[in-house]
């Protein structure tokens, strides 16, 4: 579940702040972002999708995200997270000994991806991407192995992405959608990932407002369970549907700052908590 902490944030805050339905970078251009996101949860969705309490855990991720066009149709993407996972100190009203707070800092799972533009038309574009989730994080951190900054397995996410732009009352909008399959190893269940996003630039194009709805659904075809892997189960059979928004403020033509907020609408085996994010981006 700890790894799935990461999903709650990364689902939303890795997005690039394009104002149009352009999926790949042009050759020699790029987008680079120093970001951070945070959430703290004292409840979680159970395997039945119900809510149960838990000791308060938080995660703070500082990340470097970059995408660079090596051709007009091929973009390389990289994401390097630096993750801090913590749990609150546990105390009792009686004064009896509790459990001290704990924190684990580690690099997380690095994502490397290549995006390929398949079709491009004036009003829409079609692309595909392959993301490799490198198990560079710690999947057994902390005193009990549950302070995970990675799931310890090799993710391979194949996505198809489509986008379009349109106008409503002479105001320009864009919309994007994606369908992806995450082929997971080491006994983890495979996943399907769906995403929708729409946004528009406002206030003389100084701000970009966008809304995202993402979901992850499990195929439940993995073999991991509490019976055979008490630690890794945190990251298996996870489902979540998340709704969030983001405000991007263009400081200059190249620099922008963002602030995002998202909440899980439903889920299984995942913490329930809103996520906050911010970042500074540079557009080359």
């Amino acid at each position, binding site marked *: 579940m700890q790894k799935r902490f990461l999903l709650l944030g990364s689902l939303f805050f890795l997005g690039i702040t394009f104002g149009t339905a352009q999926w790949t970078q042009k050759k020699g251009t790029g987008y680079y972002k120093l970001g951070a996101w945070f959430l703290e949860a004292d409840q979680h969705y159970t395997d039945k999708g119900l809510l149960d309490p838990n000791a308060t855990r*938080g995660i703070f991720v500082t990340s470097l995200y970059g995408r660079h066009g090596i051709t007009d149709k091929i973009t390389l993407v990289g994401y390097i997270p630096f993750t801090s996972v913590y749990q609150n100190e546990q105390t009792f009203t009686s004064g009896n000994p509790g459990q001290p707070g704990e924190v684990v800092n580690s690099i997380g799972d690095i994502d490397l991806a290549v995006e390929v533009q398949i079709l491009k038309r004036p009003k829409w574009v079609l692309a595909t991407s392959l993301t490799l989730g490198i198990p560079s994080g710690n999947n057994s951190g902390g005193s009990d192995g549950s302070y995970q900054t990675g799931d310890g397995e090799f993710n391979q996410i194949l996505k198809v992405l489509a986008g379009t732009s349109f106008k409503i009352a002479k105001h320009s909008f864009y919309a994007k959608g994606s369908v992806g399959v995450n082929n997971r190893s080491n006994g983890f269940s495979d996943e399907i990932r769906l995403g929708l996003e729409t946004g528009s630039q406002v206030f003389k194009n100084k701000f970009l407002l966008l809304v995202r709805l993402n979901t992850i659904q499990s195929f439940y075809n993995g073999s991991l369970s*509490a019976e055979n892997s008490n630690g890794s189960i945190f990251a298996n059979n996870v489902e979540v549907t998340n709704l969030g928004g983001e405000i991007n403020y263009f400081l200059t033509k190249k*620099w922008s700052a963002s602030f995002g907020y998202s909440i899980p609408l439903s889920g299984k085996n995942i913490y329930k908590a809103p996520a906050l994010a911010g970042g500074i981006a540079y557009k080359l």
Partner: protein
Amino acid sequence: MYKKILFFISFLLYLSCIGTDVTDDYVDPTLRITSPQIISIKVGQKFQFTAKYFDTSGTQIENPNLIWTVSPPDALTIDDSGFATATSDGDATIQVSVVTALGNTISAETSFTISKAVTVITETTTTTTDTGTTTTVSNTNTSTTSSNTSTLTDTGSTTSTSTTGTGTTTTDPDSTTNTSTTTEVEEPVVTETTTTTTDTETTTTVSNTNTSTTGSNTSTLTDTGSTTSTSTTGTGTTTTDPDSTTNTSTTTVDNDVVVTAPQSYQGTIQTTSSYKLTGSYEYGLNDAGQLVLDIAGDYEASTALPGLYVYLSNNPNSTSGSYEIAEVTVFNGAHSYTLPSSIDISDYKYILYWCKPFNVKVGDSTIF
């Protein structure tokens, strides 16, 4: 712009500070009689009562100031340590109380029956009879009177017997022959063998005295060793020949305190969360005398539960001060946990299933 960036990052860092979760672990203080539960005890017997006091967090308080009382007061005597002696028969109640840190008095009690003591006596009496003989005494009367007296002194028996015979004087004045015959019936000589049984408190002596020469005798038991006198009578038969008597009397006594230490408890584990966790169990001593938690075949737990552990605790809301039995590795079907000998069956009141990473209770059961 850089100040804005710095402010923004500082704000996010502030959000990630480790805080404190506070769990309310209050439970009502409890006082528990932990000595085996008595069904019955006999007058004169002694028993050590014990009790444990747990405070508002379920933590056992060492050496509490326990106050022991008896109802009715003359049923037993009991000292400050809970050591009791039964003094009279009837129903009785032992109550123990303690004053909590908040000044309240809490108590616990146990009731049982006190019965009269009975002693087992196996008595064997052997009577040996001196063979009865007929002694003929002849003497010669040397006097000229018409009568004479003969005296028989039988030194061969344990009892002297004398008899007087009379004779007839013949016409010959110079010679009188007087013959008297005496038949002596000798009293039986009784040799008794007495078996004495000693009860747990004092020695009870049985004395058996044969007081008659008739064919039966009576033995009387007087038990002066217990607080209640018990007597019994046995009868024997003397045969006419070969002059022996065997007398046996038997009385039954039970020297044990009848107790019923709870040997096992049965219950059901129930989920306290949204995770599936259910199953029945038996908690008690096995044939080898080991304390065992036997989970039955109807047990089932969600395999989505990470870091699940099972505990014994005196606080249903906390694992602080509890005993961690084991990490749960069986999620379906029967299995068991053998507990160390240092744990008594009455030491813990609750079984807890606890998710360690979430630090939250998933299920529980109240043992007693």
